[in-house]
């Protein structure tokens, strides 16, 4: 009784986001800011990447594709993990919003996977002399795309939304095995794809302007993914509300 009510509500406010109506309002307020942020960061990142960063001593100008390629590849893996996490939460705790978030994230993840593969191919042709090689990382990234497609296929094929959410969660969780395989593929099988330049345990082996450009683009991709996922979740919340009313 003595506890002030305002403190209580502030401490628990973030949990209220699990309620679809609250989330709907919140997402509607937040997504334009995120979209604007994504535009700003992308503009800054491209400016740094294409105008400030020096030409690479070995690869020449063609290396500049990393400013899109690396953030896209990061996002493709990370979004899969986040989507699987939300799907798992939805499966275990039966929260109403989690499966919607997983479903909203998956198309963005698939798009980033395609971008990573596509830019990789465009970089590989002048550098390796081939659009595609059956390298461990390329292959596992392709499998990631198939996993995304499998999830989207299952979710869209099942009409009953509850079953679709749970079945999709099982598919997503089963595919999580692939993420460490992609991440460590460069170390486990030392094939054509180069190793990581940015590491947790050592200083990055690239100049600061290159690193800055890449990080700005990564942040831009984050903001973009969040904005798009929020908008898509809002649509899904409306769809579900419509279904429930019928």
């Amino acid at each position, binding site marked *: 009784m003595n506890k002030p009510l305002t403190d209580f509500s502030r401490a628990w406010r973030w949990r209220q986001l699990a309620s679809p109506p609250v989330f709907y309002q919140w997402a509607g307020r937040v997504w334009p800011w995120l979209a604007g942020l994504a535009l700003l960061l992308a503009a800054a990142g491209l400016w740094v990447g294409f105008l400030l960063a020096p030409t690479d001593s070995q690869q020449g100008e063609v290396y500049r594709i990393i400013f899109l390629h690396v953030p896209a590849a990061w996002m493709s893996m990370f979004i899969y993990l986040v989507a699987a996490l939300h799907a798992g939460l939805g499966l275990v705790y039966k929260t109403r919003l989690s499966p919607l978030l997983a479903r909203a994230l998956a198309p963005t993840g698939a798009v980033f996977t395609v971008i990573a593969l596509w830019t990789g191919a465009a970089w590989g042709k002048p550098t390796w002399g081939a659009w595609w090689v059956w390298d461990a990382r390329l292959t596992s990234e392709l*499998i990631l795309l*198939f*996993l995304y*497609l*499998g999830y989207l*296929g*299952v979710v869209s*094929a*099942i009409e009953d939304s*509850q*079953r679709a959410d*749970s*079945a999709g969660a*099982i*598919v997503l969780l*089963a*595919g999580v*095995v*692939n993420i460490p*395989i992609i991440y460590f593929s460069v170390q486990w099988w030392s094939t054509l794809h180069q190793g990581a330049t940015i590491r947790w345990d050592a200083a990055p082996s690239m100049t600061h302007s290159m690193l800055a450009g890449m990080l700005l683009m990564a942040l831009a991709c984050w903001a973009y993914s969040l904005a798009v996922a929020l908008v898509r979740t809002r649509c899904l919340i409306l769809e579900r509300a419509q279904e429930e009313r019928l």
Partner: protein
Amino acid sequence: MLKAVCLREVRLAARRPADALSGLVFFVMVGSLFPLALGPDSALLRQIAPGVMWVAALLAVLLGQHRLFESDWADGSLEQWVLAQAALPLLVGIKVAAQWLIAVLPLLIAAPLLGWQYGMDNASIAVLLAALALGTPSLSLLAALGAALTLGLRGQLLLTLVVLPLSIPILIFGSHAVTQAQLGLAAEPALSLLGACLCLALLVTPWAIAQALRLALE
């Protein structure tokens, strides 16, 4: 109860032998198509044999599987399984094991024939059989997971879409083992990895299949 489930599977399969044997026929036919399409160059055939055999086996295991739980679902025995005292993952495991014995074991028996057609030597064929024996149970379990997830849905291709990405490691390790044997190198590492995949599949998939079946029944 467990014995009854097992016997029922075998009896049902024995009464409809065409269903059980279609995978075998598919395996042999796909295997025989490659020499027809590529020409009878024996060096090339020997080189592609492991990959062809594994892809043929994978497709043969997957293709018939979308009907795995369908008749049980239609006649209500799946509901009895859920209500039964025995744990659903155990029952599912027994069903998949029985299906493997009925539909996939003939494929293993036919595999040496295809191997000889491709001009493989006996040592490589022995490794191929070991690899198939270790790898196809995992494929059957994955296919059963796909069948449970897509139970009652129209798209038959959906199962393949879900299961194929997950079965790629088994395909890679399986054909790698045979290729190593053909080159005179040790096949044991790849076989161990196949065994590890099987352990993981045995550990995880029965529960996932049971969960997916419960969803389908809700």
